[in-house]
């Protein structure tokens, strides 16, 4: 707490730190400056010694110099300026304009004097042309006897690197001071410094890796040649091609969301409200597309319906069938995303108090009437919410359109092409920001409207016995529908597995094991680096998300809402945007990370943090705070409480957050496609490359392997979580 003594001590220590830091900072700056002056002087000596012997040739000299040193500017004067017989010969007259400025008269005089003593003169202040800073040097060109200057050379040397270095050191010093004073402040004044540090670290992480990259991305779309301008946005919003992509994304989103919600509702109804058999199998199969790696379903769609697809070519003999485009995309996205709608709707349908339906049935309403006038209206907010969820997911989807869009344009792929194909980072950033618009709208609608309109009657515990709302006929139809969709999912996966063992899909269906060997040999490095980096990210994300959850649930502090929003932000923004923001922010100092494995790890952690935090928060809310208070009362500090009480109690959330991070990192595409390097490659990109080169066999092998890894991790998680299930019970019944 704040006492006078502490305040004084704090101020003194901070002052000492600031002084020390200033000393280091200025020493660094001075040394750097001295070195660069030395370099410049020798550079200029080299220039002047290359001066043409004939005075007549001096006229061309500045041009020659400009050709050799394109970053610098030159102006040549015969004799010494101000003295008799001096004459401007040529070059960049802007340099001489500075010389002539009345305000610079004394400096110019000194410079002329130096030149006449054959010494190089450095203009004391930086000068700037067109927004670029320069160091201006005035150098004598000695005559043959080395006794006097026969000409004077004005050189403006590009100092932007030097200035940037100064700024960098300066900002590092400021950041270091801020961090120190915050940290020291917490240590001095806080009752609970450990939590204080944790908050500080979390804040530093999200500021550096969420706020900063996003701000950089937005900034890039708002500047042109160093100036604020809306040019990028004007280009984007007036270009047909880009608008087509925007419309394409929205169109695809609408189709996918509608189909998915329909299928999802059928599934949910069949599982929650009828006595259909095989519910567990159906549910299990439906969750497969959610966890399976990207490209795998697309791959299998291509194998089935592509140009050489087994159905389109072999079975139906179609020659010009084109799966690439809206149709194919909607198909594959629906299969991948209807489970989201299914799971949401299942929750909603189970939460509806069936006594309402029973009452309706008791009043002799028909089942159909009950369904249409009781169940459906109650489920409506849930339906809308599923629709929006799928819509958002469809828009953010990058992997499926990347392989399957053909000439159909969608925003996520368009922004990728802008960045990697055209090198137009600003357009790419703007396009991916555009993607945020419909997503945010959907999110707001969800927040404002759906949550208010929600009249699902939640009775606390899910009603134990739900009435079978379907007549036998309807149930049979529903079961049939579910069976067909499930069968299709099975077929898709079977196709991938089959693809592993076929020599050349569509042409030569001979059985072979060669694919496996080749895929392993060529994918080994990618697979290893993917596993390594995912393995590193997993515990970091796990711990970090549990710490964040703990702090968000249990601690009160200034800026908590902001911290929470920043942590949750990556959940709402498309991976493409995050990836582009990352290359923008981290391809330059102070955080030069592009090309390292670290940038991938950071990306994984940042992207998966929100889900982990959400799980942790939910788990912590179940725990009576007096458990932690008791531990604290018995002498445990916050770190010990976290380790010995919190972590064991929220173990299920911890484990699932970790397995989720691992799986999602193994199957990432949209963000990391911008961030991979030759050294740190990613297995999914390898699959993409194989598919692009029509090596479907190899792609199938890697996909199958990834699916197996994912399933294994989830299986392991189930096992670990089940072990601790008894815990959850005792926690909640306490």
């Amino acid at each position: 707490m704040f006492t006078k003594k502490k305040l004084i001590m704090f101020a003194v220590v901070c002052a000492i730190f600031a002084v020390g830091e200033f000393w280091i900072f200025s020493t660094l700056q001075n040394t750097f400056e001295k070195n660069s002056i030395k370099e410049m002087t020798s550079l200029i000596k080299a220039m002047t010694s290359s001066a043409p012997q004939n005075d007549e040739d001096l006229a061309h000299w500045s041009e020659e110099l400009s050709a050799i040193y394109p970053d610098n500017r030159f102006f040549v004067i015969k004799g010494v300026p101000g003295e008799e017989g001096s004459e401007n010969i040529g070059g960049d007259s802007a340099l001489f304009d500075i010389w002539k400025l009345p305000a610079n008269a004394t400096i110019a005089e000194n410079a002329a004097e130096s030149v006449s003593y054959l010494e190089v003169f450095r203009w004391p202040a930086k000068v700037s042309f067109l927004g670029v800073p320069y160091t201006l040097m005035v150098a004598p060109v000695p005559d043959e006897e080395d006794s006097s200057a026969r000409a004077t050379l004005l050189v403006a040397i590009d100092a932007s690197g030097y200035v940037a270095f100064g700024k960098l050191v300066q900002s590092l010093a400021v950041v270091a001071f801020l961090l120190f004073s915050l940290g020291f402040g917490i240590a001095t004044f806080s009752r609970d410094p450990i939590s204080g540090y944790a908050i500080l670290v979390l804040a530093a992480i999200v500021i550096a890796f969420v706020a900063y990259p996003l701000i950089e991305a937005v900034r890039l779309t708002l500047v042109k040649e160093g100036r604020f301008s809306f040019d990028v946005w004007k280009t984007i919003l007036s270009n047909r091609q880009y608008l087509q992509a925007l419309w394409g994304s929205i169109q695809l989103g609408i189709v996918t969301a509608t189909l998915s919600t329909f299928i999802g509702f059928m599934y949910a109804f069949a599982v929650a409200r009828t006595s259909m058999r095989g519910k567990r199998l159906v549910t299990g199969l439906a969750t497969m597309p959610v966890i399976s790696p990207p490209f795998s379903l697309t791959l299998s769609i291509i194998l089935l319906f592509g140009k050489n697809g087994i159905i389109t070519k072999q079975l139906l003999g179609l020659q010009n069938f084109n799966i690439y485009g809206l149709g194919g995309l909607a198909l594959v996205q629906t299969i991948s995303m209807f489970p989201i709608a299914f799971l949401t709707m299942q929750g909603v349908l189970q939460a509806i108090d069936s006594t309402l339906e029973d009452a309706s049935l008791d009043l002799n309403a028909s089942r159909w009437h009950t369904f249409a006038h009781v169940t459906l209206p109650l489920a409506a907010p849930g339906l809308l919410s599923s629709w929006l969820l799928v819509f958002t997911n469809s828009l953010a989807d990058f992997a499926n359109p990347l392989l399957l869009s053909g000439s159909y344009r969608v925003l996520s792929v368009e922004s990728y092409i802008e960045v990697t194909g055209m090198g137009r980072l600003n357009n790419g950033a703007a396009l991916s920001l555009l993607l945020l618009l419909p997503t945010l709208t959907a999110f707001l609608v969800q927040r404002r409207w759906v949550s208010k309109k929600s009249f699902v009657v939640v009775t606390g515990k899910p009603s134990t016995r739900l009435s079978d709302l379907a007549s036998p006929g309807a149930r049979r139809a529903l079961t049939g529908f579910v069976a067909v969709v499930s069968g299709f999912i099975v077929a898709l996966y079977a196709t991938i597995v089959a693809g592993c063992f076929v020599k050349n899909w569509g042409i030569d269906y001979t059985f072979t094991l060669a694919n496996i060997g080749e895929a392993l040999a060529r994918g080994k490095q990618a697979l290893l680096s993917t596993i390594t980096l995912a393995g590193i990210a997993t515990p970091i994300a796990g711990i970090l998300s549990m710490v964040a959850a703990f702090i968000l649930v249990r601690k009160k502090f200034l800026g908590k809402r902001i911290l929470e929003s920043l942590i949750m932000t990556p959940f709402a923004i498309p991976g493409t945007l995050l990836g582009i923001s990352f290359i923008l922010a981290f391809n330059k100092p102070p955080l030069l990370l592009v090309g390292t494995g670290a940038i991938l790890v950071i990306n994984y952690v940042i992207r998966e943090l929100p889900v982990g935090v959400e799980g942790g928060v939910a788990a912590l809310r179940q725990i009576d705070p007096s458990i932690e208070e008791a531990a604290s009362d018995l002498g445990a500090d916050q770190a010990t409480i976290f380790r010995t009480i919190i972590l064991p109690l929220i173990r299920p959330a911890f484990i699932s957050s970790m397995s989720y991070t691992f799986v999602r990192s193994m199957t990432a595409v949209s963000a990391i496609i911008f961030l991979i390097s030759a050294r740190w490659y990613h297995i999914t990109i390898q699959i993409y490359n194989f598919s692009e080169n029509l090596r479907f066999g190899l792609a199938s092998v890697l996909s199958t392997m990834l699916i197996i890894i994912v399933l294994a991790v989830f299986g392991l998680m189930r096992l670990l979580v089940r072990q601790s299930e008894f815990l959850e019970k005792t926690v909640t019944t306490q």
Partner: protein
Amino acid sequence: MAAKSVPVMLSDVTKIFRDPKTKAEVHAVENANFDVKPGELVTLLGPSGCGKTTTLRMIGGFELPTRGKILIGDSDVTFLPPNVRQTATVFQSYGLFPHMDVFDNVAYGLKIRKLSQDEIKNRVNAVLDLVGLSELAHRAPGRLSGGQQQRVALARSLVVEPQVLLLDEPLSNLDALLREQMRVEIRRIQKSLGITAIYVTHDRIEAMSLSDRVIVMRDGRIQQVGTPGDIYEYPVSMFVAGFVGKVAFFPARLEGIEDDGRTALCTVGGRKVRAGSVAGNLGAGARAVVMARPESLRLVGREDAIATGMVTARVYLGSSVEIYVKTEAGEILVQIDDPSGKILPSEGETVWIGFDEKLVRALPAD
């Protein structure tokens, strides 16, 4: 087992909760001043929401006072976090660690203090013996009865030998019989260890039977501090009188106070009464009430009556009989000791009530 007993002192402690959204303020505790002597057991007694828990939590370090100072022993602990205070709290909801068995729950504080394995074992076993839970050392807390859980919580707090034991309605989840047993047990342990203890309850019987002194609170303010006897016999206000026991109030006017400084001359219903004691803040001419406990009331003839009414119930308790009479001043309970052989009024009968003047007390009217 316990270290030297220490006193606890609160001076001008105030706690204001501020709703972050509405900015509404709740004055949970206002200007609390009291001290607890070494080895003493003091109860905080008051109706729900009067600030008892908040007071206790400030002493334990879970809540920071808005103003004021808290001292334990000689040191100012106002801003110290709970883990460095020498207090141990038994929470209303126990706060047992669900992922540890009874032994580990109790050993937790000792492990934090990095004691040797052997010492931990000895001390945990000793304290489990003390609370009678040796048999259950390896049960999970989720599979204990409420009373057993409560004893684990107590053992866990005692084993670290705190200077101050804080108990927040520890018995509220137990049934009546168990509550009585545990009450005796807690008192016995606290006395034998000489620990300074602060006990929160809203149950007056618990407070009266357990404590050396009682602090009565209302709406965040301390009303009265005193021994159970003081509080019962000499309450300072109608609120305290009513909260700590059954009582009848008769509207009165204070005429004056006799030279002994205690006896108050009052008029009650036109009749002159010399009340045995008077609340200090009452001056002559003030509107007052005369309070009478059931045991100082009796049935009298019409000429000596202060009030009259009809008997609504008669409850036979063995050593005494309680007679409930509906009067103009509300329902009055008259307690008649040694009922055997006496003629008792029956339900519906009209009776006249008088009191023993020496035993009644004049209080300021609300």
